[in-house]
């Protein structure tokens, strides 16, 4: 009897996503799908709004990394107000924004590691959900939990100092920023009592990598073989090939390292990247146009970024990067669980960038905004914690938004997440008439490695709730299991 299994990573009632798995008569997996069930319609309702509202409005789609949306929108509108991209802004404006962005990367990666990954590493992925969260961590290793909380706090306070608020700030405006960082504000960080200063954060980030490396040594097989499959990788890179999370050109490589998109200008992203609509999900499926829907899909995020970039422009992170690269003999890394490793190297990089930037006197400069000849269209792209984020706006003569298009990080990872689920389903579900606990765990771990916003949300303090339903050929439910 053919069957269909439904897994909801988030509870049905609060659902942002769910998984269905279809089996044929012999119990083979015929297909699996990750459905995204949320729809807002902002592309339409933002039409008619004045363009300067976009940086504060659009971030309210996602409160998990609002700074990324805030900055991607501002970057698109830099083009509209004639300031151009990249170094078109004043040094002060660009550096204040960079500080805001790296603070966001830092707090987001720290949150992910301490609240989500560390419980798994401490208790194992099969542990009781009641202890598999930061509260459980606090009970067995208070120091680690405090460290996680304080790292997030450090990042959030830097965001507040540059954006005005911890969540949904207003710091970036079309053409620049609305304030600089005063000496007093700077000193609050640079001269902060330990551990609330940049030096201590660098040390903690190094410790987090060590923690992971120790785990890796003992669990090499799991980390190296779980949900491994080849894919293309895409991200922004700096002109010289360095990792740059704020600005750069689009580079994409294939699973062997061959360059597919050679550092192209993101103002024309729509010539290189197309999206496919599938009837069973509100989330679209992006792909590299030239390669087509079947072969053009790609991964974004920490794993992809450390594959596309040539080096990391801060010394401590670069040293870790070289060690990390040695695991794949310099080739692209297609091992899903290495995303956690890559994320921690970026955490260290962000800590170093913050430390160095805070000493830069340009932050106290007074040239905040630049404008030039007005344009009607602009694209802004940034490397958000979870991957490449595209914003695109067109305005009319009355300064009203006429068209808005967004490709968010998690959307870029839509196909890879679907593949990961399929991979797990095929290896663990084939021939089974019942949903097993290890299978539930595996699906969760596979999706979570991509740290999709939807799971990150449910993971702020704990782990992903799952619900699996088994359906027969006539779509009749014959089994249902819940976890948690």
């Amino acid at each position, binding site marked *: 009897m053919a069957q269909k299994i439904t897994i909801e990573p988030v*509870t049905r009632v609060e659902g942002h996503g769910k998984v269905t798995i279809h089996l044929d008569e012999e119990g083979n997996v015929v297909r699996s799908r990750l459905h995204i069930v949320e*729809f807002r319609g902002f*592309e339409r309702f933002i039409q008619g709004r004045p363009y300067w509202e976009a940086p504060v409005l659009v971030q309210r789609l996602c409160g998990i990394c609002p700074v990324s949306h805030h900055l991607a929108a501002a970057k698109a509108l830099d083009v509209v107000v004639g300031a151009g991209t990249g170094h078109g802004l004043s040094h002060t404006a660009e550096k204040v924004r960079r500080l805001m962005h790296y603070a966001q990367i830092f707090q987001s990666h720290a949150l992910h590691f301490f609240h989500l990954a560390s419980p798994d590493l401490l208790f194992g992925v099969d542990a009781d959900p009641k202890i598999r969260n930061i509260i459980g961590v606090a009970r067995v290793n208070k120091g680690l939990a405090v460290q996680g909380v304080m790292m997030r706090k450090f990042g959030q306070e830097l965001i507040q100092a540059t954006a005005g608020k911890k969540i949904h700030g207003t710091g970036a405006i079309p053409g620049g920023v609305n304030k600089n960082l005063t000496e007093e504000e700077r000193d609050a960080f640079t001269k902060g009592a330990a551990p609330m200063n940049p030096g201590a954060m660098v040390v903690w980030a190094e410790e987090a990598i060590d923690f992971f490396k120790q785990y890796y040594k003992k669990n090499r097989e799991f980390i190296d073989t779980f949900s491994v499959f080849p894919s293309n990788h895409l991200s922004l890179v700096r002109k010289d090939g360095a990792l740059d999370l704020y600005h750069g050109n689009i580079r994409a490589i294939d699973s062997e390292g061959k360059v597919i998109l050679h550092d192209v200008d993101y103002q024309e992203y729509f010539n290189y990247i*197309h999206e496919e609509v599938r009837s069973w999900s509100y989330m679209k499926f992006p792909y590299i146009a030239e390669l087509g829907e079947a072969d053009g899909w790609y991964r974004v995020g920490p794993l992809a970024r450390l594959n596309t970039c040539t080096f990391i422009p801060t010394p401590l992170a670069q040293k870790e990067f070289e060690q990390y690269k040695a695991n794949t003999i310099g080739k692209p890394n297609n091992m899903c669980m290495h995303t956690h490793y890559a994320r921690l190297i970026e955490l260290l990089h962000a800590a170093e960038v913050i430390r160095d930037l805070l000493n830069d006197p340009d932050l106290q400069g007074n040239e905040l905004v630049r404008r030039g000849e007005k344009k009607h269209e602009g694209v802004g792209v940034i490397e958000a914690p979870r991957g490449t984020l595209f914003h695109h706006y067109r305005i009319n003569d009355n300064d009203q938004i006429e068209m808005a298009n967004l490709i968010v990080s998690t959307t870029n990872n839509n196909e890879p997440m679907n593949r990961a689920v399929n991979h797990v389903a095929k290896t663990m579900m084939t021939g089974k008439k019942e949903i097993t606990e290890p299978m539930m765990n595996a699906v969760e771990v596979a999706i979570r490695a991509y740290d999709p916003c939807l799971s990150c*949300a449910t993971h702020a303090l704990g782990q992903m709730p799952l619900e699996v339903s088994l359906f027969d050929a006539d779509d009749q439910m014959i089994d249902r299991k819940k976890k948690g």
Partner: protein
Amino acid sequence: MERKKTIVATASLAGCFGCHMSLLDIDERILSLIDLVDFNKSPINDIKNFTEYCDIGIIEGSCCNSENVHALKEFRKNCRILISLGECAIMGGVPAMRNGIPIRECIEEAYMNSPSVKGHNPEMILPNDPELPMLLDRVYPCHEIVKIDYFLPGCPPRADLIYSALEALITGNEMKLPYEIVKYD
């Protein structure tokens, strides 16, 4: 004698999760909060269904689809006190900007007119699957669906405001509301 812990449940409906993130911004106080409260059904732990009657339910986000309405009603049934947390829950917030625009236009804009899709969706495929919940005609604030006991403003409400509200409800003391912590943006 050990006091019974206060049971708290939370939900994110049509919101951005920023309100939940703001709760995390109480920073190290979260470690003392867990001595005072037990979290029941909430996306911040792994409890999917109410396992007991709760003292406090906290709702982020408005109702934009049938599942949101269902979740909200469940919360009302299972919580003694229900709080609308943030502008989305209180008045619909940014998601409610679609009110007044036919939902079909919103869908078409996203899946047919977008510059990265346009011309590449010749079969006019639109999301339309039994697995996807029904979108409502418009976005409803929570108090239009069920009775709400308290409203905490802000987008998101500041961490201090959330903490001081929880503290007051847990201890029964009067809530401290200094000017600086009540913000509407």
